[in-house]
């Protein structure tokens, strides 16, 4: 037991309080930093000193600066981010698609479809009239153009999405290489070093960004690094190694497929994240619409051509094809075109006389026949648009639910890890007072030391 022992005890308090103040200052500084987890100075008593049968404390040390975070919560946030990333990108992808068929605002195929069949009906009232015959050709061309333009727009949207897939894969690769680099740095610091806090925060933020892009499973290793895989098991980051994804064109679809580092095609296995949404829209929703559009076009072309061929032109010759027959392979909508240019070639007559309107009536009647998949063309088209609407409606509902859950989780994360300025102010005062007191102790010991030195003088 000595005066200098007390002095060292006070000095340890000064050091510890300085450290704690620094942690508080850092918390205040990062109050608005995204992804920052508040830090706590962990103050502990060092081993005591035994003198005879007395035990004295030896002050305080700042053992660790600890980040306050809930790993399970972070994982749940990442999972929600994967879902929300998928739904966001899916909805963004289909917004322009929906506008192509927005019959509520008058866009879409219905008016052209109706006008085409109505033009035959009009022709039936005056089958020999050339201007009325010309109107049938014009209405047919308008319908063909509406189909081919819609098909072209869908193809364009699909190829835009294809580019987005390539860009998203590049972002994934950039993120996983950053995460791998952080893994190396974190593992190189000894496990309890306080310096890894910031690095772990950074890595968590990057994994969050990655989660918005692709579905990720996260396994923590004992050295502090994480192993990331897709949920289907393709490795993305293992320790300090990042396994870049690649893309390559699928020759049958013309779209970029995604491959993992082992060369496995994981395109259809990517279940979430922006990539998951883009791939679903690119490979399922839009191709589905395109094939329905083709089926509708093919059904109309086949029925109109067959009925037209059964009739007779103005000069009494047998009517041929009205529309260009679809090429083999069935891309009906994109290549739809009217082959008749001379209005006299329209087969309105059913008996070969010029004034007969029987075939025009039969052609107008096709509208009520089950031309496509057992349905009349109007009904088939209405169902097709309604299905697209339902897909988007369901995704919108799911997106709203997901974003609420995500909000909730982020709120919870804030409750655990967010910096409260009130708390920090209280801590600041606490450490300030403690520092003042310790400094005072030093002064007192100094005074006592002087007295001890001066003992016996005077």
């Amino acid at each position, binding site marked *: 037991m000595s005066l200098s022992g007390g002095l060292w005890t006070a000095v340890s308090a000064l050091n510890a309080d300085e450290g704690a103040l620094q942690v508080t200052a850092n918390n205040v500084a990062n109050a608005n930093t995204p992804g920052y987890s508040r830090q706590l100075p962990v103050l502990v008593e060092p081993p005591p000193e035994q003198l005879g049968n007395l035990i004295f404390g030896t002050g305080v040390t700042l053992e660790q600066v600890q980040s306050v975070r809930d790993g399970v919560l972070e994982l749940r946030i990442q999972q929600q981010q994967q879902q929300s990333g998928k739904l966001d990108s899916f909805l963004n992808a289909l917004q322009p698609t929906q506008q192509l068929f927005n019959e509520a*605002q008058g866009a879409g195929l*219905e008016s052209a479809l109706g006008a085409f069949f*109505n033009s035959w009906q009009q022709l039936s*009232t005056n089958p020999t009239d050339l201007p009325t015959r010309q109107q049938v050709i014009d209405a047919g061309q308008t319908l063909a153009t509406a189909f081919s333009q819609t098909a072209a727009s869908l193809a364009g949207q699909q190829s835009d999405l294809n580019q987005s897939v390539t860009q998203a894969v590049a972002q994934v690769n950039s993120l996983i290489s950053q995460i791998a680099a952080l893994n190396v740095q974190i593992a190189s610091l000894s496990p309890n070093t306080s310096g890894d806090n910031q690095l772990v925060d950074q890595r968590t933020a990057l994994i969050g960004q990655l989660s918005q892009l692709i579905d990720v499973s996260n396994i923590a290793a004992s050295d502090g690094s994480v192993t990331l895989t897709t949920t289907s098991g393709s490795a993305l980051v293992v320790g300090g190694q990042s396994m870049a994804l690649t893309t390559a064109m699928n020759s049958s679809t013309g779209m970029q497929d995604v491959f993992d580092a082992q060369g496995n095609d994981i395109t259809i296995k990517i279940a979430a994240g922006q990539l998951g949404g883009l791939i679903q829209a690119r490979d399922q929703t839009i191709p589905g619409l395109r094939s329905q559009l083709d089926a509708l076009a093919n059904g109309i072309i086949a029925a109109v051509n067959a009925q037209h061929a059964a009739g007779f032109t103005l000069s009494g010759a047998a009517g041929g094809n009205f529309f260009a027959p679809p090429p083999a392979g069935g891309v009906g909508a994109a290549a739809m075109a009217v082959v008749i240019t001379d209005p006299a070639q329209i087969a309105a007559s059913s008996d070969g*006389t*010029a*004034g007969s*309107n029987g075939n025009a009536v039969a052609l107008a009647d096709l509208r009520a026949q089950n031309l496509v998949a057992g349905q009349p063309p109007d009904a088939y088209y209405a169902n097709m648009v309604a299905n697209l*609407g339902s897909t988007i409606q369901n995704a919108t509902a799911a997106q709203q639910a997901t974003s609420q859950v995500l909000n909730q989780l982020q709120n919870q994360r804030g409750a655990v890890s*967010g910096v409260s300025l009130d708390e920090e102010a209280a801590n600041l005062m606490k450490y300030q007072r403690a520092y003042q007191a310790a400094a005072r102790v030093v002064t007192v010991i100094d005074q006592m030391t002087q007295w001890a030195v001066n003992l016996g003088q005077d």
Partner: protein
Amino acid sequence: MSLRVNPNPSLNLADSLDLLNQQESTALEQLSSGQSVNEPADNPAALAALIQNHAAAGQTDQYTQSIASVQGALQTADAALNTVVTSLGQALSLATEGANGTLTASQRQAIASQVDNLQQQILLAANQSYQGSYIFGGTASTAPPFVAISTSPSGVSYVGNNGVNSIELAPGETAAINKPGDQIFNIAGADVFQALQDLSNALSANNQSAVATAATEVQNAFNAVGVQRTFYGATLQRMQTMDTFLSTEKVELSQQATQLVGADMAQVATNLSHLQVQRQALVQAESQVLGQPNLFQYMPVP
């Protein structure tokens, strides 16, 4: 220590503001378009029904237009037959006059030439065309159906056919829009041209009894054309009825469309004002949260 709450709620408030903005813009869109369904995802089922509704409305318009298009031809045919009936009535008077025993041969010859004139007029009416197509030629409507041929006993031969065109007036409901000319003018025992030819021949031959026989034939033809003419009258009547029905149908369809996708304006306006109140409250809350004093403000400054 009590449960820690999220010390930075401003993110939540900003999200709520985003949501409000979205709801407000939806309400404004509904107000400006007057529709509650503005894209397929708003209400897929209603939109599918709307597409069918538009199809039906377009078809109804077309039926109305078809009726208007054929009404002209029907009225022309009716008017033509009206002149035929009038001419036949005049022929009948001439026949009665010609049967009078006091007439001389030259007087009968004069009457015969009047009958010939009437026959020419009737031939013109029988070859009546509407917008380039001959209405009494069956479906062989591109050439005059009745031609004067001296070798024919009646002096006129029918070169049309017996084709009948029908048009659709409503789904599944059709109506014939023409009557082939031979079924009007060439009915056996009541052949218009034969009767007039016989009358003219009898008058020229100054044969009083033959004139009386021909007068009966003209009477028969007069009756027959009158009967056939009712086809056009009845068809026109039916078209008129259909037209009225179709305009009612059109109104019903547009009411249905309003029910499907129309916005309840009063409701939307009320919602909008609720949203505005909510936004005001939220903005106020946010400004309070952001402006809330914290402990730092009370720390003693040395």
